[in-house]
């Protein structure tokens, strides 16, 4: 049996990914108890690595991990050459344009956009034919319009609570972004037996809603 490495994203998807993995029969404990970033699952020739969200597609593209679970938002931002095989349906959220209510009738006059997703945002505004300045932030994007750093933001929204609490509203949806199972191009073919087995189990969980 081939040894496989699965890359999981820290942050909002971490616990959900671990839950999902246990549903397909790959369980491991002690993840939250230690600061270790690599875990072997006893007796199953499986290893997990815990990486920063935006790095998960990188680990998978280069073959350092065979599989990964990461949000669609991250995939759109990073444009890595990986197989994007399954929509795992959990961690659902939206990538949106948000801003103060002044812009609710249109994005006219928008000059600056703050976001964690500069590539995704650039593409979106380019397609609209809008010339905007994109400011890359790595967190707390919601405060940018409040302190005058930007006019609007592009960010992910789950419940919309953070936006509301900061006086922002959704102006436009860009895309839906749930968790995806990504697979390394070579691993899918070179370790095909195990890969097929895992992908099949994932499909069963998604369709069965277990």
């Amino acid at each position: 049996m081939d040894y496989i490495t699965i890359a999981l994203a820290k942050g909002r998807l971490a616990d959900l990914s671990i839950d999902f993995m246990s549903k397909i029969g790959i369980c491991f404990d002690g993840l939250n108890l230690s600061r270790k970033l690599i875990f072997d699952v006893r007796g199953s020739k499986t290893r997990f690595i815990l990486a920063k969200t935006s790095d998960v597609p990188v680990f998978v593209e280069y073959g350092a991990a065979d599989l990964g679970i990461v949000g669609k938002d991250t995939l759109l931002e990073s444009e890595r050459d990986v197989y994007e095989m399954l929509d795992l349906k959990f961690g659902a959220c939206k990538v949106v344009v948000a801003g103060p209510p002044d812009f609710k009738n249109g994005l006219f006059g928008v000059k600056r956009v703050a976001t964690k997703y500069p590539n995704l945002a650039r593409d979106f505004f380019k397609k609209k034919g809008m010339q905007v300045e994109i400011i890359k932030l790595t967190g707390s994007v919601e405060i940018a319009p409040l302190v005058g750093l930007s006019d609007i933001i592009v960010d992910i929204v789950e419940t919309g609570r953070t936006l509301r609490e900061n006086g922002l509203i959704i102006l436009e949806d860009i895309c839906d972004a749930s968790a995806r199972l990504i697979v390394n191009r070579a691993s899918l073919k070179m370790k095909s037996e195990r890969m097929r087995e895992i992908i099949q189990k994932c499909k069963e969980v998604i369709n069965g809603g277990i």
Partner: protein
Amino acid sequence: MILLELPEGFRDLLFDEFLKKKYVEDVIRRCFKSWGYNEIKTPLLEFLELFLKKSGVSENNIFKILDKNGKILALRYDITMQIARIVSCNYENLVFPLRVFYVDEVFRYDESQVGKPREITQAGVELIGSSTVEEDAEIIALAITILKEMGISEFKIEIGHVDFLNGLLEQHGLNGLNEIRNLIYRKNFSELENYLSKLNVDEPTKNVFLKIPDLYGDIEIIDKCHEFINNPKSLKALERLENIYRILEGWRMHSFITFDLGIIQNLNYYTGIVFKGLCKHIGYYLLSGGRYNSLLEEFRLKEGAVGFAFDVDALTNIVEINESIEREKEKTLIWVNKRERREDDIFDLAEELRRAGEKVIIYWDKILDKRFVEKNKIVKILEV
């Protein structure tokens, strides 16, 4: 300011690393030659238009230079396209089938992949004036032979055929939709489903397309296709793949073959089989190639052609250094320590040893640095 930086995607190759790369190139050269291929060298610069022809390459990915007269020149982007030009220029003087090979750098500017190499060494072959299935099989066999020769064991060649998907797209009136190809390439089932739904494609057709990303694996996959494929173009493609497999089976090479009917090549000039080389633990392709009959048609030639190129740097990364590379570095040192002999004597001694095949350094200093001996892999010291 002292300039120590290199442009992104370019790097120096020093000593051991370079030696290893040369070793890989030498193995490939030797094999290509022993199969009767002749080496050619193409120019570093071409007119930009050459690389835009038929290739589907975005101009953004090509390095451009402005010529004195204002014409735009391009750094060598793809050698196959250059060879197509060469063959067409020299058509009257060439005899077909023509076997040529090259080992050279191509330059590719890929915006989305920060830090990726932009200077890529390729070693490739082209068999021009060929159209048979046997020649398809032969070119794949050549790739397998070389990978084996290099001591790489866990590799596969995945084969597909562009007409498989073309046939399906035409049958359902969906040709020209690059997004479908792109989603199939990424095996992105969920978005492919969304996309087809948006196009109002009927349910049975949708189900056919949703099967394609899953059509990879052993020869059985071809049988599986026969269950639901009924257009002549796709069927012909399947037949071709099956025939290639049967031939390779006869040559005892089928264990290295895997199929993927969703393979898409970055370059658009392929018209028949397409294939790529994969290796365990490596995320990128070791080689890539296929049949490209229409590229030559672009130059008004009616010849079929098939070829592939190795990514030499990818191979260099995974090849194990072998003993002969290590031995090649060993040197003899003539250490002029005692000053018993005259300079011309010492020089003659060095020349004598060099003629006998040794690598000789004359060291003119009384103090011999240990690090110098180590770094230069000195295995014999003659004190004179």
